[in-house]
């Protein structure tokens, strides 16, 4: 049955064309973010000799930090400063410099690579300070609040003895976890493909054939499996496209490094690698899409008009986005799509006196909503 459902709703020229267009649009969107246009010519935003030099230096100093690299960096910094004194500010690029300019090289060492190395080296101390402060808080709260004790104990254990041994090109990762345009495209595609899931059957009178065949439940099951697989594959396809585009434009490296190796995520609650963060991000996006898919399926069981069910689904999607602005992270379903918030700080919610990560409650809430809508769909469809 499933292969016929795929044939009905996915293997259609309009759907395939739309998917290709949306994949291209996603590339176009990131292209627009990365470039600006000057007289019809695409120019990298902020592109200077500095960024070219930065790339060269990342090849040399990025990745695992070793004593050898530290010594070399110190030495190169001294050399760069000496050359800056020697040549001063020059207008034409010269050979022998990463950026082509002595000032550019000195700037890169002082403001990018030295701070990046310092961040990595001192992060151990920084995280232990947080851990110790939390431990002291736990002692302080012992007489007042069990919840605060548990929360601070959790913080203390999570941040204790964290180490950063990597110099990571952070702006690519920040952009990746912050990028939400592709999720919007996935939602549009889900609405476009799944809105007719039940309504078109009713419009064409197929519901009568399905009911009279005695295979109502099997038909609903195959449709829901199709919806589930579709939301999974669309999420994965666009997720990997995001990765490929952002890697091509900004660079995604050091998958083995902890997520807090990116300074923007220094306070991340989770002690996970960047690779594991990608998995969390993909799963989180998929759960949101699953929830949204269940709502689209449910709305499709009303009436014969696909446009109406599509419009209703779109309205619900818009509502989730609007609610995202006001709801706390623990209840924010749409917020699970852009995971940078998830990784940026420590956020827990008090559940019966126990600290539970906000993301966990948001995921649970999303799964509960998805389950309820799936049950409602099964009960309503083909009636």
């Amino acid at each position, binding site marked *: *049955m499933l292969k*016929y459902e795929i*044939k*009905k709703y996915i*293997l*259609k020229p309009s759907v395939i064309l739309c998917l290709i267009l949306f994949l291209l649009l996603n590339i176009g969107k990131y292209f627009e973010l990365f470039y600006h246009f000057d007289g019809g010519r695409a120019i990298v935003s902020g592109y200077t000799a500095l960024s070219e030099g930065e790339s060269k230096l990342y090849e040399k100093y990025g990745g695992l930090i070793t004593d050898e690299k530290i010594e070399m960096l110190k030495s190169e910094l001294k050399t760069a400063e000496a050359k800056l004194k020697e040549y001063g500010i020059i207008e034409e690029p010269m050979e022998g410099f990463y950026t082509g300019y002595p000032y550019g090289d000195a700037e890169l060492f002082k403001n990018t690579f030295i701070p990046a190395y310092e961040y990595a080296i001192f992060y151990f101390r920084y995280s232990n300070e947080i851990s110790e402060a939390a431990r002291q808080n736990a002692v302080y709260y012992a007489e007042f609040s069990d919840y605060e004790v548990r929360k601070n104990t959790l913080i203390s254990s999570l941040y204790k003895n964290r180490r950063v041994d990597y110099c990571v090109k952070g702006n690519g990762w920040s952009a990746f976890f912050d990028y939400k345009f592709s999720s919007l495209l996935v939602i549009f595609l889900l609405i476009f493909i799944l809105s007719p899931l039940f309504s078109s059957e009713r*419009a*064409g*009178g*197929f519901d*009568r*054939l*399905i*009911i*009279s*065949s*005695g*295979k109502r439940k099997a*038909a609903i099951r195959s449709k829901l499996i199709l919806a589930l697989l579709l939301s999974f594959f669309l999420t994965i396809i666009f997720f990997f496209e995001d990765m490929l585009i952002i890697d091509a434009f900004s660079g995604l490296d050091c998958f083995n490094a902890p997520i807090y190796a990116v300074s923007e995520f220094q306070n991340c609650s989770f002690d996970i690698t960047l690779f594991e963060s990608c998995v969390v991000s993909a799963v989180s996006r998929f759960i949101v899409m699953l929830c949204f898919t269940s709502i689209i399926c449910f709305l499709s069981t009303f009436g014969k008009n696909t446009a109406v069910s599509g419009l209703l689904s779109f309205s619900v999607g818009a509502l989730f986005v609007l609610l995202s602005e006001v709801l706390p992270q623990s209840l924010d379903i749409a917020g699970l799509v852009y995971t940078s918030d998830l990784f940026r700080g420590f956020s827990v919610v008090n559940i019966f006196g126990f600290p539970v990560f906000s993301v966990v409650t948001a995921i649970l809430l999303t799964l509960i909503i998805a389950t309820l809508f799936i049950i409602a769909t099964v009960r309503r469809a083909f009636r």
Partner: protein
Amino acid sequence: MTLQIRELSKAYSKGKKALDSFTLTLEKGVYGILGPNGAGKSTLINCITGIIKADSGSIIFDDNGDRDYMKRLGFLPQNQDFYPNFTAREMILYSMALKDVKADDPKAYADEILKRVNLYDDRNKKVGAHSGGMKQRLGIAQALVGEPKIVIFDEPTAGLDPKERIRFRNVISSLANDKIVILATHIVTDIAFIAKNVVLMDKGRMIDCASQTELCSNIYGKVWETVTDYDKGMELMKEKRVSNVVSEGELFNVRVVSDEKPTEDAVSVQPSLEDVCIYHFGEIG
């Protein structure tokens, strides 16, 4: 093989009874269901096919101990559309999946079904490119998947041209040997050609179920033809149940269904199935 419909009742939200203790026993053969709009034909079909649940009553099937008629049911709903991006063969294969029909070579099985409705040559053509008649034949084909014992056609010839209608009648007639075929239609001539038995229903109840010959003989002596001028013809049309008017120059040959002789010079004629409908319902179908 029998299909017994016992005391079947169904009322809708406004309290109107669409089926009112409808009782009927069907055996092998073609049954035509006739009744005016709102007689309950569609409700009856929807109850038999499981699309709606009856409030009370039962439907009992017996074919040498086999009692699950839903597995032996073929159905062509009214105004049935098909997936435009499916080919005729894919549509039959989908019906096989839907009805859980297993075959060693599913494509060969589907092709055999399509041959029966003369769609084999178009088996790989997308349904979206089919004519109305081809779609209707495809509808019949999908109803025949799984060799059903009971086949129900709801308004099957609506929108078909005369040639397609004849083709449809021939297909139905070829099915009648070992099946219960139920045909609900407004087109009396379709039933007149292919249904051995006719079920008359009105207001959710069965009025009569008999062969066409019996139904016609029941009103023998109540169908008249008279030749009149325009004024008298108009008067008859207002006062009597007129089943047909044929213009013959300045005069009109008027066919009247009436217990009494409508005019002095009226002559009794052989009743037709249309006359039976006019007699019972005041309208055809």
